[in-house]
């Protein structure tokens, strides 16, 4: 007799459910729903007028985050590319003047260059040694001395381009430097360290900027969610009080706000992340972007994709946690 009534009951459509109503389909599903507390809300939170605003805000924040991080990733990938192009290369210069300022003979410079090149090629950390010829050197220094002036008038230094084996340790490089300078007082090893230091500084700055943006985004989201939660607590004060009075634990009540915030944040964050990704892709596919290896090129690496997957999750967890603590603090004031 009751089972008939229940059957009749389950046929009545129930409007405005925030989640698909799976209840009553199968006892196992029921149990799962009970366990996961995926029941519809006891409180009509999803009817709040400012839900749309919160979704929009979280969406905007996620959008910004995606753009900011895409920018940061791209720049740091670029800097990695540059530095990897440079970090295994050193240049040895054999000066054309003595330290006292006197010109050395071409022959003396050439001789020194050969000697140093030999030392270099015997070093275990050196991969390739390339003595530059006059033409190459000319091209390199032309901008400083004027193209049309005869080069034969000016004594040219010797230049050796050296590629080190990857994995070279700084001590090994220091030893090589000492060896070379012992061999010739005119030899000079330059390691592009200034360049690398600049790049490291740039990367550090980018990480800081990303961090600051992340912090701003996080704080804004937290503020908005906790404000929204407090508004909802105020609007539903009587209902919350009723739940409290008939024995609902703080966690039971907080769970509802928490889940609501989670859903809002997920909605916003997924939409925002996807929009951000779309914009990034459009920019990446714009023509003229991959012309030069020095202009920014949007690189979406594995880390980036993981981050994009994590962002909505992160936003959701942030929102849920914020809502939870806001509610728990408010509830603590009830006896």
């Amino acid at each position, binding site marked *: 007799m*009751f089972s008939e*009534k*229940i059957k009749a*009951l389950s046929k*009545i459509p*129930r409007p405005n459910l925030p989640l698909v109503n799976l*209840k*009553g389909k199968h*006892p196992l599903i*029921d*149990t799962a*729903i*009970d366990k996961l507390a995926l*029941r519809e809300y*006891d*409180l*009509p939170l999803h*009817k709040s007028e400012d839900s749309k605003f919160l979704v929009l805000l979280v969406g905007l924040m996620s959008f910004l985050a995606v753009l900011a991080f895409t920018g940061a990733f791209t720049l740091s990938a670029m800097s990695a590319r540059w530095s990897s192009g440079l970090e295994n290369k050193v240049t040895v210069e054999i000066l054309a003047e003595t330290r006292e300022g006197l010109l050395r003979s071409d022959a003396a410079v050439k001789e020194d260059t050969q000697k140093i090149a030999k030392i270099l090629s015997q070093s275990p950390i050196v991969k390739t040694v390339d003595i530059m010829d006059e033409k190459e050197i000319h091209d390199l220094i032309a901008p400083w001395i004027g193209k049309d002036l005869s080069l034969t008038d000016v004594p040219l230094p010797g230049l050796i381009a050296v590629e080190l084996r990857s994995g070279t340790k700084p001590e090994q490089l220091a030893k090589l430097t000492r060896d070379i300078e012992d061999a010739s007082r005119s030899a000079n090893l330059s390691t592009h360290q200034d360049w690398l230091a600049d790049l490291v500084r740039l990367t550090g700055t980018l990480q800081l900027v990303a961090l600051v943006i992340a912090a701003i985004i996080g704080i804004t989201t937290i503020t908005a969610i906790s404000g929204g939660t407090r508004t909802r607590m105020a609007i539903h004060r*009587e*209902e919350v009080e*009723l*739940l*409290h*009075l*008939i*024995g*609902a*634990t*703080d966690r*039971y009540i907080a769970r509802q706000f928490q889940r609501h915030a989670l859903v809002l944040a997920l909605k916003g964050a997924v939409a925002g992340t996807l929009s951000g990704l779309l914009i990034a892709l459009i920019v990446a596919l714009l023509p003229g972007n991959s012309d030069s290896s020095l202009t920014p090129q949007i690189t979406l690496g594995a880390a980036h994709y993981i981050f994009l997957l994590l962002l909505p999750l992160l936003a959701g967890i942030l929102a849920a946690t914020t809502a939870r603590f806001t509610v728990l603090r408010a509830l*603590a004031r009830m*006896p």
Partner: protein
Amino acid sequence: MIKFENVAIRYDSGPDVLQNVNFTLAPGSYHFLSGPSGAGKSSLMSLLYLGRKPSSGKVTMFDRDIGAAPREALFPLRQRIGVVFQDFRLLDHLSAFDNVALPLRIIGRPEAEIRSHVGELLDWVGLGKDKQSLPPTLSGGQQQRIAVARAVIARPRLLLADEPTGNLDDEIGYRLMGLFEQLSRMGTTIVIATHNQQMIEKFGHPRLVLENGSVTVIDETQGKKIRNVF
């Protein structure tokens, strides 16, 4: 079960609504709470359903000193108390069914059990057809019956009802009072605040009378058997 010792109630910095309240309610006892409007019946009730702590004095319930108990200790106690509020306090956006199911859901009963118990009780109070109606679309008396159903659904050990028949005709009123009698016989401690003199006389339980800010217990039932009104 319940022991009040020198209890006083006041709101914020106002005067004492009740003072020097002393009484003991034995487990399974049944009392009417009466007194003129504004005497403090609902206020006393709010102490009993743990809606507030005494402003002074000591309240012992379920063997615990309520004033000294930590917050967390009160949740399970409240789950054993059923309350019919004077103003019903139904959740307007939940159906009659879900309103009544609330106490069971809070203590995590399985949905199948909830469905059968709640359905049965709603049929019994005459709301079988209105299970899926929202409270604002129901009559005053229908809302009051939902409030009563919600209070008793979890078989509470203490049942408090504040004017539970004010919007009901005598027939349904007596029916609900009969339900309370049944619960009482099953061991539930009951306190019912009412102005209905007839009701008080008919069922003849001991009375807690509030007047001039203090409580007197009047028990005229000594040796007298409760009339069977069904």
